């Protein structure tokens, strides 16, 4: 009896170990965000309450600025990629040998390391680069892609879009292929035009897939680091400085771990909030 009493706990041990391994670093980080932990000073961290949050996220603070950039970046990237991905997925629903070829080709950007892809785009975006050269073909003036505060965020989102739209296409394409052809046929028999079919049939049926896309792309772009750091390091000035890059500069360069952790905790809340709300909506619908 006693051995069968202990056995379940014993079997739980690996799970508990895993849980502790996840929670321990996380909770340490959260705790540090409430301290004045600064490696440069060589002192033990002392508890500082919400000082880090108050100073960084006050009006004019770098935390607040990074928070807004994070939201803008994610909103732009997700909107652009969902719209573009949906359009391309619709096109790829057609039949034909060339379509198969394009379906295979379209995942290429996803297979490239983001840092490499970004380096490539950085070269294309220099003032004398190939993008401005191509603008010249259609008599447009050169564009200062990454060098100006007013265009840098847009340019970085563009790179993100080039890399990650294929992901959206793949998910939505799988979704479209899961819609039974009978429904399409029924719609056509009832005389629905193609736009109507897309809007009233495909879009609602794809709802769970849109939610997956927004959750994954949303969280990914909220915590975007590699593309921004490679392209602009958060600049020019602070035009592309999101929470993650700001946390890196504060924590790793300036060694101010406490403040850096406060940025990351806010970022975590953002990501968790997004996933929580969207998955709630999804579950509500499904049930």
């Amino acid at each position, binding site marked *: 009896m006693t051995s069968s009493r202990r056995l379940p706990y014993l079997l739980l041990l690996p799970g508990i170990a895993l849980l502790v391994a996840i929670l321990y670093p996380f909770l340490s980080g959260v705790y540090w965000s409430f301290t004045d932990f600064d490696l440069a000073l060589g002192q033990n961290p002392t508890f500082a309450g919400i000082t880090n949050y108050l100073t960084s996220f006050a009006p004019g603070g770098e935390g607040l600025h990074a928070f807004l950039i994070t939201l803008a970046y994610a909103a732009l990237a997700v909107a652009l990629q969902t719209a573009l991905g949906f359009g391309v997925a619709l096109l790829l629903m057609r039949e034909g040998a060339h379509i198969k070829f394009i379906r295979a080709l379209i995942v290429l950007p996803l297979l490239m390391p983001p840092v490499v892809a970004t380096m490539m785009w950085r070269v294309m975006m*220099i003032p004398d680069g190939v993008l401005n050269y191509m603008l010249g073909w259609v008599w447009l003036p050169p564009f200062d892609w*990454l060098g100006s505060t007013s265009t840098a965020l847009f340019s970085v989102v563009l790179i993100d879009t080039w890399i990650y739209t294929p992901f959206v296409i793949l998910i939505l394409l799988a979704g479209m292929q899961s819609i039974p052809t009978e429904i399409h046929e029924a719609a056509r028999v009832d005389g629905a035009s193609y736009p109507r079919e897309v809007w009233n049939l495909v879009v609602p049926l794809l709802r769970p897939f849109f939610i997956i896309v927004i959750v994954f792309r949303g969280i990914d772009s909220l915590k975007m680091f590699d593309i921004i750091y490679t392209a602009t390091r*958060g600049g*020019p000035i602070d035009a592309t400085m999101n929470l993650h890059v700001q946390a890196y500069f504060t924590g790793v360069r300036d060694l101010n771990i406490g403040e850096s952790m406060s940025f990351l905790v806010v970022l975590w809340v953002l990501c968790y909030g997004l996933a929580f709300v969207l998955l709630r909506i999804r579950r509500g619908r499904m049930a």
Partner: protein
Amino acid sequence: MENERRRWRRIGRRDFLKGVGAGALAVSLAGCGVDFSQKRQGGQDPSKVKGEFSWTREKGKTINLIFAQHPMADSFIAELPSFENLTGIKVTYDTLPEEEFFQKVRTDLSTGQGNYDAFMAGPPNNFQYAAAGWNEPLDDYINNPALTDKNYNVEDFYPACIDVNTWDPKGTGKGSLWAIPANEEAYSLFYRKDILEQAGMAVPQTFDEVISAAAKLDGQSFGGKKITGFVGRGDKTFPTMTGGFSSAFGAYGGQDVSPDGEVLINSPETVKAVTKWAELQQYSPDNVGTFTWYESMNHFAAGNSAFFIDADHMSETFENPDASSVVGKVGYGLPPQGDAGRACGIWIWSLAMAAASQNNIAAWLFVQWATTKEQLEKAIPKGNINPTRQSLANSDTMKEYTKDWGNYNEAWQTILSDYAKWRYIKSPKFPELGDRWALAIQEVVLGKKSAQEAMDEAAKDTQSILD
């Protein structure tokens, strides 16, 4: 049976998760009590070691080193077998790209692990590590005849190089030497001899002359290439402050922080320096805000610019036919003059030792060996320039290595002995302050704010970092 299973389940899931969560929280909080202020003295006390100096004193020990990828590191690594033969000490080492290297060193030093006995360091690192008590002051090693060869001759190092690494974290007195300089750069005005000749212009001597020359040449074509008048680092991090900008900063008599801790970065002198630098940067490529030393160097080496102020030993790249289209066309000028004369900053790569090292004497033997005149001379043909020892500046090895580089070997010596100096506050907070000031310079260069406005704001922000 059914009942029993259900009971297990009930206890198992809810309560268990709660219990584990609380447990993990408790463990985390306990773990946060790691002592970061402890004095990490490992190994032997250097002042108490007695006896004759001997390279084989620590025979049989093993030391572990870490380097950033750099010609200096390569030159030392290539010679490690001869160190092992000489001393009987076994050496293991890691080499990492610069950014990862800094992270790894910081992690190791801050946790007091002492995995690395000696490591490469730049000036702001010395200030950060020394303030935290992570690296070892070297005076007791150098001054102990049992530990330092009588031929080592520490006076041979350029005073400006020793000065960078000498610092008292408490701010009183001269302080200790924290690292031995092994590679030096100061900042030269690079100009294209062919372009100036073709345009019939003399080498500009003052910042105003450089500005007007850059304005005239900007956008013109030479050798089939449309060039920019100037190029300089424009990135928004502190290396922009320590690079070409340091020449303008010094030339106009700029000051960053007064001895009693008042931020002076918005003083009339500094604001003028920023104004002149921003004027010059108008003739740089439009995306100069993304240029670190690397992009700037490549821009100039590709023949895209008439003038460039940056690290003098970039000559290594400019005169290398595989990396440059301006071989033999570059003149190495002194930093331009401003209201307060000529000036420039300095950057040193050094070797430092971890305070937590258990093999500190063996590590010192390595640091000493690597920075002897003999080893630093062997490192020159492997690309470790400029040498930090005065006796090597005019050595045959250095003359031979730079013989095809125009006036290079005279220029760097004059710059180092007359104009180069660490020009900013020696503080563990320098990277943070420097990043903020560089950001302000970028705001001015990109025309977002006036120099006065940007520097006023930067002064306010950095004063609160310092206080």
